[in-house]
């Protein structure tokens, strides 16, 4: 039994907002199955009492003072925008309210 099905890959692609073609799905699903089998090895490591590590040095409380620094100009902010209008980013219609 594969560790991940084509349907699951299609679902993940929707979650990740990638409009995969059928061909891609056909190609990707077996590859991901292989990769997941490989990475699944981590579960063989007995590590129940082991704390997780997220960074090399255990830093804490890295904070900055509540001070203002210069912003980008609106022109800079919008410089990469695919479309802009009224000094705002113009985006296609949004289907659902957040």
């Amino acid at each position: 039994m594969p560790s991940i099905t084509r349907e699951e890959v299609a679902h993940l692609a929707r979650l990740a907002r990638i409009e995969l073609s059928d061909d891609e799905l056909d190609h990707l699903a077996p590859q991901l199955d292989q990769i997941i089998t490989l990475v699944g090895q981590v579960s063989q490591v007995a590590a129940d009492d082991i704390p997780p590590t997220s960074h090399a040095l255990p830093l804490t409380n890295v904070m900055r003072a509540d001070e203002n620094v210069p912003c980008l100009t609106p022109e800079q902010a919008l410089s990469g925008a695919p479309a802009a209008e009224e000094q705002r980013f113009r985006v296609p219609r949004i289907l659902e309210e957040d």
Partner: protein
Amino acid sequence: MSDLTRKTAAELAELMTSGQASSVEITQAHLDRIAAVDGDVHAFLHVDTEGALAQAKAVDGKRAAGEQLSPLAGVPLALKDVLTQEGVPTTAGSKILEGWKPPYDSTVVKRLKAAGIVILGKTNMDEFAMGSSTENSAYGTTHNPWDLNRIPGGSGGGSSAAISAYEAPLAIGTDTGGSIRQPGAFTGTVGVKPTYGGTSRYGLIALASSLDTPGPCARTTLDAALLHEAIAGYDPMDSTSINQPVPAVVEAARNGDVAGLRIGVVKELGGEGYQPGVEARFHEAVELLTKLGAEVVEVSCPHFEYALPAYYLILPSEASSNLAKFDAMRYGLRVGDDGTNSAETVTSLSREAGFGAEVKRRIILGTHALSSGYYDAYYGQAQKVRTLIARDFAKAYEQVDVLVSPATPTTAFAIGDRIDDPIAMYKNDLCTIPSNLAGNAAASFPCGLADEDGLPVGFHVMAPVMRDDLLYTVGAALESALAEQWGGVLMTKAPELEVTR
């Protein structure tokens, strides 16, 4: 004057200090070299001729005015296209960012500019640094100057190829699982991954936030150290930046004394799957270090075998989230905005069109690994494996000062060889990944050519967190001993590239 492009960064700095060459001359020489060979090598995605010459001119002006300049002022450099430079196209090797000009400088670029280092342009890379060959670049593969039919390594193949092709004496790379060290090994150059947090990630387009580390690429150990010193150090813009003095890397590179240094050979990084020519050069280098007075022992790091699976959970997980920002709303490629499609659809179409196969593979893998029901078994467990690997390192460092291994199991492979076999591709990084997971410093130094294919082999050194200086101690010792044997650094053995005018 002999060819300026053959000089090391330290030599070029000396020529400028003594007034024998200007930065403009040096920069122009490298721009000419790029024009002559980059058609074949394809190390650069963008060459900033005007910007580089303007920077060079400014440095020359300051020098003429008697201003105090930093050691590398006026020396040209190639910048991996994953770091932002204000007003200069930055793509991270992806179609989705084609044409994007960042409105800000990364911290590394700020420091390069402050040091007067001249940025020649942006170098090719695997898309979003996902890959080990540059074949995943949306803008074509970079070719290995030692053999143009071979890959130069990746993801920073462009940076390493640029220095190996004498298009620049220095380059910046970024290393998430070996992306500085593996291309260094494949191109016969020096590649250093500083301690995680030792160099700032601000302005580095994130692949895996907890692993990414910018670092220097050069043809010599000293050059790498000089560049390391110029870019390293605490940055308040990066919360994971380490607020400690930069290790004395330049001093270490100048001394290169390994007498009494305890070196551990990692038992698990060798044997099956390793090319004989790679192992042969590696062991000779170890013997050479023994002769120079180092104490060599074998050490075991039993959890390193789980590094690869843990890495391929952590990286895709973080990447799937980091790359979510590429949604066609604020910058980058937008596809399908025909007035009827919704934002949701336009995002999905744009990501489909803008991302390459490997990026999609990893985003989907990461999305899976973070999904509810899988998190504990995958991401959570991988972070625990990270602890075990860090403990393996800590235990080893009780015994020895540095660990060593081959940098890669094989030499550079042929273009196209592994492109559709992700697992074979991933295994390239077996030796380099543990140091990313544990965050310690590591580097690859050239140690000869493999007998089978005559291609460069990298000697991998792993030093404890914030002991980056030890890398340079070993690298410098090895380099001078080998140079004595060879009559120069390994790069002098590289074949001449055909020059087109």
